[in-house]
């Protein structure tokens, strides 16, 4: 399985992969088989992740140019991408690349990833400074019109079947009411909403 992780919370996903699961991590700057951060003194200046930080390459890794890297992404060859979010709409549409007038970093690879990956998972804090990030309609510029598949926060797991937000799981000790209160979008409630298995 080929997986691309965004920066921030999504990067931490790599620390929780079951040992028997065969996963290749892609860095969009041109690497499949991205490994952990190198030990002190072992960094190679020409081996970095998409943020320019030193990484390692695992046995079986390969490198390629940016056209192939984004061919992999846009062409549907990346099985899963895990990204951060600024806002997610009730219909699953994502805004995660700019705040007009405040933060204009550029979209980098985010638009291609959300448009092309087979499965888009968002890993984020449920709210920002107490304000819901799962909103009725994104007010920030969209990353793609393609809806995300799954959202995982410290409070809840929300799926987006048929472009509708459905609460699937809740974090241990968090009630459905607390999640609904921290969410602007109307949530469909699954028949059973079990606690997340951590």
């Amino acid at each position: 399985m080929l997986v691309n992780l965004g920066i921030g919370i999504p990067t931490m996903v790599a620390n929780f992969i079951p040992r028997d699961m065969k996963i290749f991590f892609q860095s969009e700057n041109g690497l499949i088989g991205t490994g952990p951060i190198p030990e002190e003194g072992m960094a190679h200046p020409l081996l970095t992740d998409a943020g320019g930080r030193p990484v390692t390459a695992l046995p079986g890794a390969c490198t390629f140019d940016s056209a192939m890297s984004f061919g992999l992404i846009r062409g549907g060859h990346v099985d899963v991408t895990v990204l951060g979010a600024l806002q997610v709409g009730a219909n699953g549409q994502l805004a995660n690349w700019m705040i007009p007038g405040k933060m204009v970093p550029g979209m980098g690879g985010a638009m291609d990833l959300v448009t092309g990956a087979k499965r888009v998972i968002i890993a984020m804090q449920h709210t920002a400074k107490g304000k819901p990030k799962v909103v009725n309609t994104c007010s920030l510029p969209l990353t793609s019109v393609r809806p995300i598949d799954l959202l995982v926060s410290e409070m809840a797991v929300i799926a987006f079947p048929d472009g509708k937000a459905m609460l699937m799981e809740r974090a241990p000790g968090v009630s459905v009411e607390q999640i609904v209160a921290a969410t602007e979008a109307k949530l469909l409630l699954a028949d059973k909403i079990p606690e997340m298995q951590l």
Partner: protein
Amino acid sequence: MQTISVIDAVAMIPDGATVMVGGFMGVGTPERIIDELVRQGKRNLTVIANDTALPGRGIGKLVDAKLVGHTIASHIGLNPETQRQMIAGQMKVDLVPQGTLIERIRAGGYGLGGVLTPTGVGTVVEEGKQRIESNGKTYLVEAALHADFALIGAFLADYLGNLSYALTARNFNPVIAMAASTTIVAAEHIVPIGLIAPDHVVTPAPLVDYLVANG
């Protein structure tokens, strides 16, 4: 292919030139050519590259020296000086999705007028662009990009100009090598012909106009 001093190579680049620069956050950027551009003070450059690196690194040095009038890139978020000059109106910045940017460059080098991509449909990226429906899917028409100069950072160059790259320093380099009128290469190592095996040559020698000599 001609070998050339870095001074003479950069002297060919006029003020106002459009330059494609290899590298991803500075990794794979030909720093010697960048340093000489700064030393010779080439002004009002249009830079086409993935990003503008960091202040003091790669393209960031051109930004620090206020030599860039227009940037076409996918990401400037890690260079606050680029953002400052953009907000102050000193530099025009076009932000392009990374996969679209590299394909526009590839199209320019491969003799295509542009590409059709689903990336950006229904977003601000679509503004001013033509939509095309094909096989039931919606695409944007994204025009090809060309440059006056491509500035390449290679790992190995042989005496003929065949190039290979190392690890994640490949990125935009082999693609921009095809999309500019004049291609200038700075390599970490210049090696005898044959040392890069035919199967390992990534950029063929006929694409390289100038190889910057050591020293």
